[in-house]
């Protein structure tokens, strides 16, 4: 129903989980949350068509959406959790062999003609990463920054490995359906996951067994909509997830909440929820 559902191949993963074609997945009758979100599951100015259902990862976006007068929510749990269920061994190494930090730079966003870049002091951030991390660091840049040579080069020249997991796509085109597969594989080989903002990748990393860290200049995003409270709100609500050393059991409990682990459902239930059963 909406091309955002294809982002990161999430719709494909859910179709596979349901035993359906994941190359051309069936339509979802509404909107699927595509990233961790401090609001109602989508950006503050997202459009919705009447009667659409909103499939969110956890209960908090449902509650916030309810406060905005929105109904027809269904909580599904994050597709990444379903992928972990589908791929229990993908990239897995024994815990003792996990090494290094996968470090995610807060990224801009992409939309033809209306994307937004990040602005901040990369040199200072690199110094802080070097001061903090004791094992090899792999910097993950989203392609919006990966393709900005000046940004990518600054991290490469600092001696970090710099990788990119691909594109989430736009209007059903260019989606890297292996995006989350590659990310999961990467998480399962490192010990730590870190970022300069609390973001989806941190929760994914914790779910994949990494120790989290959130520190450094959070940087500015062009045209960032402060409608939902911005970084200070994140500090008030998820303060336990900020810092260079975070209590792991607490982080896992919060991650389970935010990714909606308790809402993960069996395939048969999901097929009905998405109206994916054949009716004729």
């Amino acid at each position: 129903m909406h091309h955002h559902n294809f982002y990161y191949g999430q719709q494909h993963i859910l179709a596979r989980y349901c035993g359906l074609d994941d190359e051309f997945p069936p339509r979802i009758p509404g909107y699927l949350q595509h990233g961790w979100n401090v609001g109602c599951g989508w950006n503050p100015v997202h459009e919705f068509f009447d009667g659409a259902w909103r499939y969110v990862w956890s209960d908090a976006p449902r509650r916030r959406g309810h406060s905005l007068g929105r109904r027809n929510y269904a909580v599904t749990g994050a597709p990444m959790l379903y992928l972990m269920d589908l791929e229990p061994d993908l990239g897995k190494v024994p815990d003792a062999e996990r090494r290094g930090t996968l470090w995610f730079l807060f990224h801009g966003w992409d939309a033809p003609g209306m994307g937004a870049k990040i602005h901040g002091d990369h040199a200072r951030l690199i110094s802080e990463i070097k001061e903090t991390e004791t094992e090899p660091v792999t910097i993950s840049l989203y392609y919006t920054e990966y393709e900005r040579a000046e940004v990518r080069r600054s991290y490469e020249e600092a001696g970090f490995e710099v990788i990119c997991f691909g594109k989430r796509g736009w209007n059903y085109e260019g989606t890297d359906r292996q995006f989350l597969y590659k990310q999961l594989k990467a998480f399962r080989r490192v010990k730590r996951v870190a970022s300069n903002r609390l973001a989806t990748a941190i929760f994914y990393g914790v779910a994949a067994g990494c120790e989290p860290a959130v520190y450094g200049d959070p940087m500015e995003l062009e045209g960032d909509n402060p409608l939902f409270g911005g970084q200070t709100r994140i500090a008030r609500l998820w303060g336990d997830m900020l810092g260079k050393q975070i209590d792991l059991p607490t982080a896992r409990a919060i991650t389970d909440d935010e990714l909606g682990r308790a809402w993960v459902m069996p395939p048969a239930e999901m097929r009905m929820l998405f109206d994916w059963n054949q009716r004729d």
Partner: protein
Amino acid sequence: MTDSVPTPAVQIVRGEIQPWTDYTGYRSPAGGEPLLALLDDLLPASAPTALIVGPHSYPVVELVAARSAAVTVLVRSVSDAQELRAAVPAGHVTVITGALDGLVDVPPFDVVIAADGLDRVLGADSPALDWPARWAELRRLATGDALVVVAVENEFALTGLYDRRPADERHGDDEWRPLHDDAARPTSPRQVAEALGERVTRLYATFDAAGTSHTLLDAAAAGSTRPGRPGARFAVTGLAASAAHTPLLAPVADGADAAARAGLLAAVAPGWLAVLGSGGAIHTAYASLDSGGVLLADLDEAEWTLSVRDSALEPAGRLPDTESVETLLFRLAAAEDVPGFRALAGRLGAWAGLADGVVLLDDLYPEGDGFVRGLTRPAGEDEAAALLAAAYHRLRDRLLRAHRRHPWPPWMTSTDDLVTTWLSMSGVADDPGAVKRGREIADGLAEPAADEPDLRTVLADAAADRQRATELAGKVFGLERTMRYRDQSLRTREQQIRTMRDELRKLRNSPAMRLHEVSRKVAKVRDPRAFARALKRRILKS
């Protein structure tokens, strides 16, 4: 504890919501003249510190600010906080936005006001605290001997029980968690008292119009009153204000009467307001007057003492705690006791106080041979007959609108005949002018029509319409039958006429009639010579 938001003077704690407002939604912030009057009586002259939790009207905040050295106001909406800050810029007032559970590391307050209740104090990101947990959060912020005012919404309110919307259409945007599906929420005066503990010194049954206080009635007084008495009238008027914006299954007044008979009016009020700790002297009831201002009432044994706040104007004085004249008349009408009705109407007509102003029979109470006017006294000067006619027009309207039982036929109730009849029972002779003027006065007193009629009224109206249609069909049948009889009658008469004509024709052709004809013509000959000449000329011509 806090950090700054773009508007410098507003502080922020965990759990704020935006975009959001509790000030312009379906329910106003706690406010209204009765609540202000109560707080004015209750608050100390100057408290060291005060906390206001939840949305409260600006006048409430200003009143508390005027009686406290330092005031903290906590609202969950960022924009509400910013607007409140702009409206109340006083330096000793601190405005904080956030959730109740987010206000931590602050010293306890000497006065705590939560007159909006504890249902609009959490954000969407707050934990799912049930009512006792929210109360514990509030109590945490009060000193041991603090004056605390806290409201509780009643799940068992008549306005909720009579709400005709199904459960899934009642929740608002603020019920991201089903607030009212809370087994631990107190839902009776006794449960409220138990939940709040031994420090409760007064409990009011509250009646509000979409958040704005309309009537506060001491819960014990509400529990002891009976239908038609002044206490019940406080409650019924308040319930009507509360129900004005709710689509109903049935008029709340019906249920209120039943609840009053059972001594349960306090249990079915839309909410309660509890006072913990001691403050200034307060009254049994605070009620909004249609004319403006607040009526203060105190019940002492079998008598109410009334006054109007900040006014030396009427009404002031005392009132017997008895059933109203309207209640008595309705009861007599339902029993079809016309002699009893006539006797009471006669007493009304003879009452010397009739000419003192507009009479509301539901707010007029018998005392001895006379009557005492009650809580409301609309202005108006007219002759006694017109005033009594107005009272009867209003009685008729309320009798019919509530579909009450009565002995009078529909052609009387649908015209002025009923009022004219009642006037004659009161000793007022046929006076069309008074009846007409009475209608005008009654129209001026009429309660505003509900946004939507209640379902029982709609069904009763539909049933009445069906009955009317049946009766009209019967009337048409009767008229057709009458016409058939008329046709039969006409045919009979026509036959009679035809017969008479035949007989007449036969009579004309009889020998006697011909002889009579000739004789008549011969009798007309007055000049025989001229007649002979004329006859001769005719014969010659032929």
